[in-house]
């Protein structure tokens, strides 16, 4: 039945749709902008599995339509999130910001449906450049700077990816009939190509120590831009990792599993220290994406097919839920900043009185991310943890559970306590405009819906049969989770004083390039630039001297020799006449220089010069048979003897 419906790559809907946004104004633009994600949702629903939309490009072929359960699962949440976020962003006036956001969403969808590495790379780059515009539209100095750092990191990531792709093309199976294939688990061996591609991917997945761009840039983006950014960059990276690297081990070590688990804890620890609400939430993106990366690593670590499939299911499910609740968290935080103008926890307090609906939406998202039963994080995160359990991996299991505690501690307890409750800061505000509330409402509804009816999500996962038997609401699991969360709450109440937000920033790995960058700039500006300037100056001086000298070499030599006699050896006799000191005479000669180029010298001088030239010619003939040092010594001897002869002559005058 669905075969009859004509579909296009959803990337095309957003990208072409984006370019037409500036043509509309006011309400027409709002209606048009909502139409695009709606069309895309219908389009994705009717897309059939298979490979389609193969376009020639130079001597290659681009595959824009590889549709299977994994790509469809990510595409569903991308277009649904796009709808909610577009509602949220409707009141943004700048057409350019909307265009950037839609190009960004479109290219993320492009990556998801790309069947070859070249299209992945192209959309990868569009994504980076479209998203940096969302940062720069904030139009503060901090956002311009953060945007530059953001784009530099992503350009490095793009270059690594491109390098990896080019190397991959040389490997067997790397270029088939003009297509650089991006098949499932294509990168299941270590080679320079796969390592470079992995590095390109994990920069976008914000894996420490390559993660610092995320908490650096997201809090500086526009209110609505940051909401879009939470959904797409890291999740496309999770998608490509799940697609290509779900069987990737280095020397038998499932590297992504360990990186993911470390990531989950790393984000949590930094979030506890944060004061800026959006940066706190950004660190929780790092943490939550850690679960997904870890899920991919668990799939690589085990030989049990069911566990491996379950881990990938968990990753996809968690990415799906994460986009919804993290979008909602950023929408709520954005609403606070939009309505109060404050970004720091230390400046907030008692906001529940003035922004109650925002508070409720925030809490729904916070309960979701923390894995409270009946919210969607509970039904998705637990699949990954369950996969770790089935793979008998106790350290990973405990690390992920510990990260869950930390997540509830800072997103579920600390942030709401100090922002919405706690000491009343007496801020005048109200709930945000209706369009924002609708966007938040859609996300909140889905967070609860997928928490209550997880099978809606489980049915669209890449391996539905692997999670068919999985029951998140088994009594032991629910009670275990409640114990974990309630005792975390208890711990928070005990530690409340210690966990007070502080007016500081926390150094992260971006210190290396922020401070390192300053050092590098100093090195360029001082030693390097001065060295270069000095070399240029010396060359120009030599050139000027040579030009001056060649105008009248004999007179020039005379002046130089007299100068040496006068100023170095303090012999002035013989060069001065009555009424003129020696210095004046040299000045006079310099002024008149070059004067008459041909000196009317006695015949003896001509003979002398002729002899010198003949002698020079003799040396020229002999030189090839002499060593360099001998030649230099000879030249020195002549120069010195010439000068000393002149000196002797002057001494004779003096005598």
């Amino acid at each position: 039945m669905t075969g009859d419906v004509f579909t296009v790559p959803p990337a095309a809907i957003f990208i072409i749709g984006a370019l037409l946004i500036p043509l509309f104004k006011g309400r027409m633009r709002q209606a048009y902008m909502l139409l695009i994600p709606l069309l895309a949702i219908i389009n994705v629903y009717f897309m059939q599995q298979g490979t389609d939309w193969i376009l020639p490009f130079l001597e290659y072929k681009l595959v824009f339509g590889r549709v299977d359960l994994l790509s469809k699962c990510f595409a569903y949440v991308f277009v649904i999130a796009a709808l909610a976020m577009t509602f949220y962003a409707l009141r943004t006036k700048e057409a350019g910001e909307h265009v950037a956001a839609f190009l960004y969403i479109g290219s993320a969808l492009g990556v998801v449906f790309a069947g070859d590495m070249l299209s992945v790379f192209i959309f990868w780059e569009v994504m980076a450049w479209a998203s940096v515009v969302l940062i720069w539209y904030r139009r503060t100095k901090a956002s311009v700077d953060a945007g530059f750092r953001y784009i530099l990191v992503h350009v490095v990531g793009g270059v690594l990816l491109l390098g990896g792709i080019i190397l991959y093309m040389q490997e067997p199976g790397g270029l088939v009939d003009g297509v650089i294939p991006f098949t499932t688990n294509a990168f299941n061996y270590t080679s320079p190509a796969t390592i470079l591609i992995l590095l390109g991917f994990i920069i976008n997945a914000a894996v420490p120590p390559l993660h610092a761009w995320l908490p650096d840039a997201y809090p500086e983006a526009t209110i609505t831009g940051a909401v879009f950014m939470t959904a797409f960059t890291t999740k496309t990276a999770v998608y490509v990792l799940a697609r290509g690297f779900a069987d990737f081990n280095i020397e038998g070590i499932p590297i992504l599993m360990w990186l993911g688990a470390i990531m989950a804890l790393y984000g949590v620890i930094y979030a506890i220290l944060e004061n800026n609400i959006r940066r706190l939430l950004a660190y929780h993106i790092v943490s939550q994406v850690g679960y997904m990366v870890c899920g991919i690593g668990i799939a690589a670590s085990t030989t049990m097919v069911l566990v491996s499939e379950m881990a990938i299911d968990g990753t996809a499910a968690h990415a799906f839920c994460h986009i919804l609740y993290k979008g909602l968290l950023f929408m709520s935080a954005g609403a606070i900043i939009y309505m109060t103008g404050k970004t720091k926890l230390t400046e907030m307090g008692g906001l529940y009185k003035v922004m109650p609906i925002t508070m409720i939406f925030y809490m729904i998202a916070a309960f979701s991310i923390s894995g409270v039963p009946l919210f969607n994080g509970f039904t998705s995160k637990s699949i990954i943890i369950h996969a770790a359990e089935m793979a008998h991996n106790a350290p990973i299991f405990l690390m992920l559970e510990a990260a869950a505690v930390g997540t509830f501690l800072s997103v579920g307890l600390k942030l709401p306590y100090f922002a919405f409750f706690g000491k009343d800061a007496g801020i005048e505000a109200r709930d945000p405009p209706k369009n924002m509330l609708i966007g938040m409402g859609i996300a909140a509804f889905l967070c609860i819906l997928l928490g209550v009816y997880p099978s809606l999500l489980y049915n669209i996962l890449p391996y539905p049969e692997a999670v068919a038997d999985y029951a998140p609401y088994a009594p032991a699991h629910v009670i275990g989770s409640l114990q974990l969360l309630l005792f975390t709450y208890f711990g928070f109440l005990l530690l409340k004083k210690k966990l007070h937000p502080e007016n500081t920033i926390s150094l992260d790995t971006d210190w290396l390039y922020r401070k390192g960058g300053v050092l590098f700039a100093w090195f360029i500006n001082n030693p390097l630039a001065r060295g270069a300037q000095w070399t240029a100056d010396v060359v120009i001086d030599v050139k000027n001297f040579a030009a001056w000298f060649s105008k009248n070499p004999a007179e020039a030599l005379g002046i130089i020799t007299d100068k040496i006699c006068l100023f170095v050896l303090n012999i002035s006799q013989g060069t001065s006449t009555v009424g003129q000191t020696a210095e004046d005479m040299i000045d006079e000669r310099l002024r008149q220089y070059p004067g008459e180029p041909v000196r009317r010298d006695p015949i003896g001088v001509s003979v002398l010069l002729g002899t010198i030239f003949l002698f020079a010619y003799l040396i020229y003939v002999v030189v090839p048979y002499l060593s360099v040092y001998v030649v230099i010594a000879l030249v020195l001897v002549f120069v010195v003897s010439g000068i000393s002869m002149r000196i002797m002559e002057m001494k004779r005058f003096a005598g």
Partner: protein
Amino acid sequence: MWFLERWLENPATVKKITYILYASLVIVCLLGIVVQFAPSTEHEDHTAHDAQDIEHARHEEHGEHDPFVFESIPIFYAIFGLVICALLGLGAKAYGHNVVMKEEDYYDR
């Protein structure tokens, strides 16, 4: 939401909420012990029916019915939650104060 405000700012309510929290802590612990030590009806079903026995064996092969040793500790998750909460909270703050936390204009200087 003004009703909520008056309600939340009343010390008696806050006290009541705190008691509810303490009560729920005890309840989840008790429930956890009950679930852990109660005879599992599901398990009996497995042994009763041949078809499910095969299913059971399939899961055994994938290690599903083989929880970690530490999970047999009563109220493991409660203890784990409290300990990790304290470790993370205090550990992160200690790390922050000693290593990474700086003045806000650190990068502008």
